[in-house]
């Protein structure tokens, strides 16, 4: 009987308007969270555990820099600053040889000799674990690591075009090079042997121990100014790396940072979408509240009479509160259904373009929707009660 009285002036059109608006808002908020959760693992490392990676950094070479003689090297301050960055685990310096090096090779009756250059990095950054990657003073043979690209260049480019035999990594390891070191008026011939091939380091690498000794002996003795750094990072998809490099004008040799940029844009896009969703939600909650206020306003006389014949404000408020909360709950439920449907659709699309896509759980987005539902419902319940209390 009470409901028969109070449902008067309940406008279906207003409630439908609220329902649709609220539904849009909530679906957008939940979808934003869900999409971010589904897609972000694709940009992070596959296994999800923290997997270390290495990034080689150089400074940008610009025309003006070249003309003005601006050095492309890193100062000690810049190195220290790099070490302080939150994404950095460790920083290693590339140490170039500051003496002349030439390498000769006797192979199948041919004698080849070429000027070359050597670099070293701290041993922990070397991705080839060779047993003979050691050097002690006086050792005749220098272990060398060359980029795997070089071997590929020879095998698949040079050797095929010249009808020369292709070389395996094992065969290369048996070849002995003649390394001539000269500087400071001294000259020394050593043997060089290639002990490994690196994917990570795009240079001809010798052990740091050898480089320290040789630089001291043949080098010009100047201060070490590395032009390249190698950085160990926890997560190369961390967008802060890309930002930091951009601010300082650093470059990397490969495009490991792209995923960082994509993640950043993804976060930005999802943030914008969620903000829009939240705004729509907030507006729709206002529509609901205004609708209820309007109903209460139209029913003021009835409500006042009910209160005066002894009905308690909480009893009179209850039908409206139940109406509001069940509307909110219905919106939440429908949002979950819509979320699942939309997710099904975009999962199909993503599965086609991303290998190994399996998405995240929907718990978080549903909980976020639930939270929204609770906040709004509690607010509605309180607002209705206050409005009714204010009648008499």
């Amino acid at each position: 009987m009470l409901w028969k009285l109070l449902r008067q002036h309940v406008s279906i059109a207003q409630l439908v308007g609220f329902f649709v608006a609220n539904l849009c808002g909530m679906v957008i908020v939940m979808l934003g969270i869900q999409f971010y959760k589904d897609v972000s693992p694709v940009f992070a490392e596959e296994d999800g555990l923290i997997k270390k990676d290495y990034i080689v950094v150089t400074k940008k070479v610009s025309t003006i820099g070249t003309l003005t003689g601006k050095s492309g090297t890193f100062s000690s301050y810049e190195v220290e600053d790099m070490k302080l960055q939150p994404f950095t685990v460790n920083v290693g310096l590339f140490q170039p040889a500051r003496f002349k090096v030439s390498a000769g090779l006797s192979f199948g009756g041919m004698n080849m000799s070429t000027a070359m250059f050597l670099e070293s990095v701290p041993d922990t950054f070397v991705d080839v674990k060779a047993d003979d990657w050691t050097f002690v003073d006086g050792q005749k043979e220098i272990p060398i690591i060359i980029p795997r690209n070089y071997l590929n260049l020879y095998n698949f480019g040079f050797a095929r075009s010249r009808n020369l035999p292709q070389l395996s990594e094992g065969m290369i390891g048996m070849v002995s090079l003649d390394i001539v070191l000269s500087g400071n008026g001294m000259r020394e011939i050593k043997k060089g042997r290639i002990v490994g091939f690196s994917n990570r380091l795009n240079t001809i690498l010798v052990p740091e121990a050898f480089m320290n000794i040789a630089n001291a002996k043949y080098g010009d003795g100047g201060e070490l100014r590395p032009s390249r750094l190698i950085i160990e990072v926890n997560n190369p998809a961390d967008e802060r790396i890309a930002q930091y490099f951009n601010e300082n004008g650093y470059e990397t040799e490969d495009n490991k940072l792209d995923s960082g940029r994509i993640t950043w844009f993804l976060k930005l896009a999802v943030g914008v979408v969620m903000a829009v969703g939240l705004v729509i939600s907030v507006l729709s909650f206002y529509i609901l509240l205004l609708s209820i206020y309007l109903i209460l306003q139209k029913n003021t006389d009835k409500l006042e009479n009910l209160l005066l014949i002894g009905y308690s404000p909480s009893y009179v408020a209850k039908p409206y509160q139940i109406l509001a909360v069940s509307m909110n709950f219905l919106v939440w439920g429908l949002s979950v259904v819509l979320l699942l449907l939309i997710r099904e659709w975009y999962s199909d699309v993503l599965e086609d373009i991303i290998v190994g896509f399996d998405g995240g759980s929907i718990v978080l987005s549903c909980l976020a929707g639930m939270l929204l539902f609770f906040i709004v419902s509690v607010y509605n319940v309180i607002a209705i009660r206050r409005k009714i209390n204010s009648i008499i």
Partner: protein
Amino acid sequence: MERIELDGVIPKVFSDKEQTGSDVWNKKIIFEKGKSYLIEAASGTGKSSLCSFIYGYRKDYEGTLSFDGRDVRMFSGRDWTVIRQKNIGMMFQELRLFPELTSIENVMLKNNLTQFRDLDKIKTWFCSLGIEDKWSEPVGKMSFGQQQRVAFMRMLCQPADFLIMDEPVSHLDDENGGIMGRMLEQEMSERGVGVIVTSIGRRLEMNYNTKIKL
């Protein structure tokens, strides 16, 4: 609840008048349970104001109004809800019925809350007041006199210490007024309720203990 006391009570709109010539305003007056009071007044002397002060939905008065010595200004909303469910029954001058509900629904809306009367009793009231044929008619389609009888029955569904009626018979004929008066006297003798009736001309006929000029 045994006593309703007014001590120097006067509506704020009257407070600048020196002499009102009233037995109620700015005086000390006590309404006791089990007795009947007729408050006679000319129009505009604050009859409905008095009812609304006692029933707790207006507070624009000066002085002290208390129930059994408790100042009603201290009462919370919850206290008033309890009082309106248990202690005071009210028949408003403007009736405050729900025009879209039928007459029985209007009465039952109150009785569902108090669970005080059974349906048979209500049926006998409808018969004695001569509106048994209006049982399921929306109140909005009834005459004001008929509506007054519905409001009267609704008030009787209150397990009250006091019943307050603001011009209950203004649109009723003497015969029906007499029936209502007898029903009230019966309530007084059965339940010991106190009765306060206001009137500006037509008065509800019964043996009043006290007649007061407002």
